[in-house]
């Protein structure tokens, strides 16, 4: 059972990570959701394993399943759910503004990258001009 769960968690982490590396927000959100599920499964397996429902008086307390990881997982599911909903709202807003949900680079980063490209182009042009002058001489 716990091998199966460990395998499931690994699968979820793997696919989630792959989706996270995409540019579209919709895929990133699905990826974040999958990784969240993976960590919740991990949280569930961190208890003592199989056992009876932990209701006082129903059985011997030593046979109970550990209720704490379940409570923790529930809390984290609720939080992840809320934040995912917020991300969807952000994605919708982005789609309304730009008709797209591609996550763009930082403004300054794009500015610096463009400056670098411009410098390269200018250098290339200068080299070409020199070559042309050389050819003229020949």
């Amino acid at each position, binding site marked *: 059972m716990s091998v199966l769960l460990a395998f499931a968690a690994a699968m979820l982490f793997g696919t989630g990570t792959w989706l996270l590396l995409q540019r579209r927000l919709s895929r990133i959100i699905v990826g*974040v959701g999958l990784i969240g599920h993976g960590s919740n499964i991990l949280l569930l397996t961190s208890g003592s394993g199989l056992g009876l429902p932990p209701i006082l008086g129903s059985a011997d307390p030593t046979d109970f399943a550990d209720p704490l990881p379940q409570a923790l997982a529930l*809390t984290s599911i609720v939080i992840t759910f809320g934040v995912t909903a917020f991300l969807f709202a*952000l994605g919708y807003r982005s789609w309304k503004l730009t008709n797209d949900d591609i996550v763009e680079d930082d403004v*300054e980063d794009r500015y610096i990258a463009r400056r670098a490209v411009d410098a390269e182009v200018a250098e290339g042009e200068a080299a070409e001009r020199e070559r042309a002058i050389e050819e003229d001489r020949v």
Partner: protein
Amino acid sequence: MSALTSIGFLGADVTAPGSGSFDALIPLPVILPLIAAALSVVFARLRNVQRVISVVALLGLVANNIFLLTRVDQATGDAIGGIAVSQAGGWVAPLGISLVVDRLAAIMLLVSSLMLVSVLVYAIGQHAEERRFASFHPVYLVLAAGVSASFITGDLFNLFVAFEMMLVSSYVLLTLGGRAGQVRSGMSYVVISLIASTFFITALALLYSATGTVNMAELAERMPELSSGVRVGFSLLLIAVFGIKAGIFPLFFWLPDSYPTAPNAVTAIFAGLLTKVGVYAIIRTQLLIFPIDAQQGTLLLVVAGCTMLVGVLGALSHDDLQRILSFHIISHIGYMIMGLALFTLAGIAGAIFYVVHHIVVKTALFLVAGLVERKAGSDRLSRVGGLVRSAPMIAVLFALPALSIAGIPPFSGFVAKFALVSAGIEAQQWGIVVVSLIVSLLTMYVMGRIWSNVFWGQPEDGEIAERLESGATKLPILMTVSTVVVVGLSVALLVFAGPLYDLAERAAADLLNPQGYIDAVLGSHSEAGG
């Protein structure tokens, strides 16, 4: 949210023996803002009522935190050793949620509540997002509750919940207004924070399966039973989790991208508090939970050095005032990590002093940046100029914290840096000392660059020149007053540097003796339960 509701229910039933009514005040830093947030939702349509509720609640918080700090600091003679514990809902320590206030937590609570109330007044004076959105006040108050909760919690899972309270409200505040730039940077901020939270959950799951507890005091007791490799693994995992929030190298990249797009007042409170909550969590977990052999001294020193350098170089290369200051936060996180990484009394005391100094001074600088933008209509260094003539008041307000952060002798920044550097020399870590001194010089250059571009010279932009000449834009009185208060606090840090440093040293001594913390949390359990 089960942990949250149980915090909400505890008020009346607090069972820590011996200290009487004092313990009922411990959960107040969380409960008070939450109740105020609920009330301000009810009065969503009456902005003035909302304002009164928030300001009164946060002023109450300041009063409560002053009281907590004096009580915790006085209690040195007691067996508890200046650590106040409250068990949520009367459930005993490893089962229930412990709320712990030691000197470090009390200092952080007081400084953060002072900043929260000043920035709120500034935001009210700004007549911007605060006036347009009914959700500003409730969300801001939940942020206050989340920040306070992360300082006082004695339980790692509850720390996760506190982080989430703080982060979710920061998502909303960051994207308030929904402009294209905010949505873009909001996306990367939310996704990064969400991944950090998932790492945190993963770390918690692994810690729980290894030790069977998430109570920090009990974790500290059980950690020596694990093999040393596992201990080091957990230590690194927690550094990575909190490092993303603190913005240390190489996990800082999201910070200078997202902070400047938020509304001014919001950026000021993010810059002052949020990263410092991450630093606090690193200091707390490293010193409390892990025994000496799992503490990452060398790694943290390297990280601290890189963080300082990258931050200050980034600040040098930008043109936008808010971006320069945002990059600059990262550089200073490096100093705090340096103090911790020395793992000596002087180093940790220096780090605590540095955190306090940085929260106040950085908030002040961001508030002044907001004033510059309001007055000149832009905060790009290449466009603004000559403010020293057209707005001498702003120039003075900028000069005081800027000199302080650059570490010019009489100011608190000098005291903080001097403490750290002398601690580094004492520990014979020459490399980090040299880096910190170089970065200190570069910081002075960054501040000088802002000064000569914004305050000296002529405005390069004709429109801005006209705007400044005519003197048409009057600064709202509340904005000016709250900036003056925060700048005044940064000057007060200089006046009270001696007593404050002594306090930081006492807090560091508490931190270096984790047994006191463990006994205070688990010991009161056996008395209350037994």
